[in-house]
């Protein structure tokens, strides 16, 4: 067992699960979506991206790309949240919440792709 591989898979999976945890719930209900969960999702997603740096294989490039997409989506969600609450003072209206959650939904898709790619690679390695 390679500890590096364990850590790698751990972060990718954690990014996916945290993302999912934030995403799940009524799309426009702020009570169903925790700010800390979004924060954790962003942090883990960033770490997962860094873990994929420097992979020179083709599959590594796909992984890095999907991870960057997830980061972008989650950061966009966080910025929408921050702007709505602190800058414009709109507050977490259902429409704002819906756009935040849908952005994180996009990130969820990217993280899922990451996970699928990791599974495929693992499977190929077994053979």
């Amino acid at each position: 067992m390679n500890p590096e591989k364990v850590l790698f898979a751990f972060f990718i999976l954690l990014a996916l699960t945290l993302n999912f945890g934030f995403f799940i719930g009524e799309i426009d209900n702020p009570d169903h979506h925790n700010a800390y969960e979004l924060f954790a999702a962003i942090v883990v997603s960033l770490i997962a991206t860094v873990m994929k740096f420097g992979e020179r294989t083709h599959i590594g490039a796909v992984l890095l790309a999907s991870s960057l997409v997830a980061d972008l989506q989650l950061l966009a969600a966080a910025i929408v949240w921050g702007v709505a609450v602190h800058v414009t003072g709109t507050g977490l209206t259902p429409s704002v919440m819906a756009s935040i959650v849908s952005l994180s939904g996009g990130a969820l898709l990217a993280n899922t792709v990451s996970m699928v790619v990791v599974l495929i690679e693992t499977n190929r390695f077994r053979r």
Partner: protein
Amino acid sequence: MNTPLSLLFQRMRLPLVVLISAYAIATAGYTLIPGYDDSGERWTMNFLDAFYVVSYTGSTIGFGEIPAEFSEAQRMWTLVCIYMTVFAWLFAIGSLVGLVRDDAFHEALGRRRLQRTIRSIRSPFYLVCGYGGAGEMLVDNLVRSGRRVVVVDHSDRAIRDLQLRDYQVLVPGFRLDASIPESLLKAGLQNRWCAGLLGLTDSDETNLKIAIAGRLLNQKVLVAARADSRATASNMASFDTGFVIRPAKEFARRVSLAVTRPHAYQLYERLSEAGARQKWESDVRLDGTWLVCGQDDFGRLLAERLHREGVDTRIIAEEGDEGDWPSGSVFGPSSEGTILEKAGVSAATGIVAAHASDAENLSTIMTALMINPDLLVIARENHRHNRQLFDEAGTHLTCSVSGTVASAVRPVLEAPTVPAFVDQALEYDEDWNRRCLERIRDRIGDERLQFWSSRISEKRTPPLAEAIDAGRTFTAGMLTLDPRNREEKMEALVLMITRDEEVITLPDEDEPLAIGDRILFCGTPHSAELIWAVAVDPDVVHYLRTGQTRLANRPWWRRAVAS
């Protein structure tokens, strides 16, 4: 292949993860730890404020306690944050600096840069493997003739030497093992501008591998390789290596020419420019007994050759059986007086010191000259830095091994027909060789020689072909007249014309040219450029033929096209 960028990312993984974690922990902490305002009301930071505080704390800017005065708990957390983030930054920056100083990173960066340089070369270049004595001389020569060169050598020192040399153009040097085909590919073997591959390393096996790789990986390049042993030489010849140079054979050829045919040797030396002139008077008597000292092929091949030419030779070998060596051979260290006496040094005309060790050669020469001061001395110089010692020891002809190799390879690279001309010239008698040398001296003087060849055809030299097709006569002599003033002759000479099966060596000035002629020129680099005008400009052809300028009669737009 490790690219610099992927290496950078790989090394920065841990520092970046640490940095992100530190920021994440600090930010999360600020949002959780409560503060109390003036009225004692409890408040906590939102993510925006928390990240703001962490950002200016982590970068050591320190705006103070924003948005409101901190509580004791928040100040404790700030302390933790300061040390955590500042050390995370130090770790990241330290890793980056360490990477910049890292040898592997430099290597990757350097190779990337060199490969970019090779891709940017937009003219034919030669790939020289092995930057030893011969390699260095050859690179010097090629660069001076305006050719581009790429060097591959496995030793760090050779590449550093190359970088310290002051060439007018950039000569990229790769520290790679030339016996691995991939190294040759990295150095640009399959680049479309690669014109030649030269295996000049000191190992026969490596040179053989280079020659094979050259033949298989790029059929268009000219492959020239050095082969020390007979087996390697015939092996290389078996798969059509463009040019195989065997130092021992070339040495034997040079020395036997110097001994038996002084004029032919002078011509040969003038054409190849190996820097080995005879220092004896032209009226000195060269016949008589010659002693050849040496154990390896150099001495043996020379003795055989001299014997064939009818020169009385005697070999002094370190050790050996009577049966393996020609009769009359003497065995023992040639640096000892008794052995030299035994070989008859006091009655001999000359001695050739052809040992593989320069110290042995020098001591042989010194001892022999002490016994017989009138002796003619020819030496094999194995390392270039011993040249001065050989001169001081009183050598009349110092034949350096690397000079021999470099000077044999260079003309072939410039024009592939040079060896054919040399072979032809050596078949003629001494008188012809003397006249040839005189003609070169008349025309070019002692300037550096360069060879180039050209072919008269519709495609290569349209104006010339047009004139000849129209039945006008254009002679070989006209080619080397100055296109700016026909009365002046350029420092160039037509050495040979190859026409179908016929070969005309050193054609007369009034020899008419025909379509399909392949012409071998020699001359100064400057004249080589001027002669190109004949190949492209109909006005120049007309002027050289008739002496009348046509340019002034033409409208300006035609003139612009012609120039």
